[in-house]
């Protein structure tokens, strides 16, 4: 992106009225979860969940949903948290707190579609990282979850232009970033980067947000960018995309990100990728359940 456009975008995003603020709950949550799952402090999570009545209610509702098929109803936050497990509680907390970034009436992309995609990419990133034996699976998850925050920024700072951009992408069945480049002159990767920097998110995550569509030289972004890029593509092909059909053929084994990962993580070469792909349908089900819980009318 040209420097002039970036400066204009930066000043537009950081202007007080339009700037999405980091949700209150997010920082302690990030701190709390920035460690191996077995070391996560359950009491602290229960405390964070109880802090927000909406989230607490959602946890209980989800723990009682058909997905968990319990015989006795769950009534306390603690039981709900224990039954759902840390992963799902965290998913719920993240998606809920990030949802509060923009007011309900400012969404351009249907929030359910947006979260289905973001949570889907997060899950696939984590799974991908596990398969590769990439050491920081949680970072991969977080990168996946946050990769599209630029879409929230665009909905806030340029609602009308972004609405017509999204309509153009849907109508012409082209990737959103391509439509953004054509109509806005910048993409959600650019605006996401500006917000991530303003939120003081770690530089490797900022890079994953900035380069997730156009990874350029894979050496620059490293494994995290490649993982997010490929997971994003995969989700868009497995019913966890932006809510419209993108006619395309992807030969993953020929993608620069894949070639880079194969070089650094030899076990990728032996992966049964067809099976990995079919397995994503399980995630689609899980994510669907989560999203319908978050966005169901209380």
């Amino acid at each position, binding site marked *: 992106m040209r420097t002039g456009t970036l400066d204009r975008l930066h000043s537009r995003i950081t202007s007080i009225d339009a700037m999405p603020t980091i949700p209150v709950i997010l920082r302690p949550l990030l701190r709390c979860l920035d460690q191996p799952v077995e070391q996560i402090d359950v009491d602290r999570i229960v405390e964070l969940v109880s802090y927000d009545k909406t989230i607490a209610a959602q946890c209980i509702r989800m723990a009682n949903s058909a997905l968990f098929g319990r015989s006795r109803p769950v009534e306390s936050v603690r039981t709900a948290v224990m039954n759902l497990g840390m992963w799902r509680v965290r998913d719920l907390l993240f998606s809920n707190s990030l949802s509060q970034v923009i007011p309900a009436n400012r969404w351009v992309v249907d929030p359910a579609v947006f979260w289905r995609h973001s949570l889907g990419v997060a899950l696939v990133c984590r799974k991908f990282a596990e398969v590769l034996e990439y050491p920081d699976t949680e970072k991969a998850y977080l990168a996946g979850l946050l990769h599209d925050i630029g879409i929230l920024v665009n909905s806030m700072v340029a609602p009308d232009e972004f609405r017509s951009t999204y309509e153009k992408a849907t109508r012409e069945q082209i990737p959103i970033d391509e439509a953004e480049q054509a109509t806005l002159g910048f993409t959600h990767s650019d605006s996401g980067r500006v917000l991530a920097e303003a939120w003081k998110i770690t530089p490797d995550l900022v890079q994953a947000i900035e380069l997730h569509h156009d990874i350029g030289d894979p050496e620059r972004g490293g494994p995290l960018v490649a993982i997010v890029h490929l997971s994003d593509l995969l989700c868009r092909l497995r019913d966890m995309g932006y809510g419209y059909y993108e006619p395309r053929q992807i030969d993953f084994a020929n993608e620069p990100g894949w070639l880079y990962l194969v070089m650094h993580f030899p076990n990728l070469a032996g992966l049964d990728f067809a*099976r990995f792909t079919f397995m994503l*349908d399980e995630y689609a089900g899980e994510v669907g359940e989560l999203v319908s819980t978050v966005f169901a009318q209380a």
Partner: protein
Amino acid sequence: MPNESTVVANERPTVAGMSDPVWVRIRDLIYQVSGIFQAENKFYLLLNRCQVRMKAVGARTPREYLDFLTTRPNRDAEMRNLLNEITIGETCLFRSLPQIDALRKVVIPALAEAKKKLSYTKLRFWSAGCSTGEESYTLAMILLEETQTTLKGWTFEVMATDLNDHSVAKAQEGIYNDYAVRNVPPEFMRKYFTQSGSNFRVADSVRPFVTFARLNMLDDSKMLFMRGIDAIFCCNVLIYFDGKSKTRTVQHFYNALLANGYFFLGQSESLYGISEKFRLVHFPGSTAYWKPGDFGSKAGSA
């Protein structure tokens, strides 16, 4: 034949019933033997189909049924019975909509573009293991439809083969009940079918484009004659072959395809460990195997 949605609505078991780890072992065994993968969110279907077989053989628990599939003397026959049960109801016209979308929106335009450069204006599809013709006619209808747009001025043919004489004869009749046409979009129903009592007959405008023949895919001498194909469709057929026969048949398919040609399997069927030559390609909601061009180019790749 029961309506699948009715079965699901009435008999969908609870998740608790599916938590037995034996189901994962049965799922993995099916994948290992046949290449068909059942995602965990579809386990209720797997459970449903296994229960039919469990009742038939008298197995009381999933664990006991796993023995029927692994250690009992007639395990191969039982696996075959289970695979039959799993694929039941899958033979209908317009069976896989994501595959059809991929065909119309990506594959046919990519093939047309590649062939036009060589001044060819004919496409040849092969429906291998065509059973009673549902897939073969579906392909012909789609290609016919595309001759209005992407394939204007083109010709095409669909070769349809099956081992079973009765299936071939039934396919040639081209008459289907309402269950077999349940997925057919209304505009295709209007254009390409005529009502015949309570059944539906494939229109005469479609029939000349489809040629049915008996063919044993394990007969090397016959398979050698299949050449110059743009796309092969072989759904839920290789699942019954042993490893060696699978590899040999897939090699024949590879040889039969032109460079840049496509090989489609069933919706959740994989070629993993069978062929290294094909490249797995992804479309929205479906996958296929692609034969690289002379220079390994990425036809239609994004």
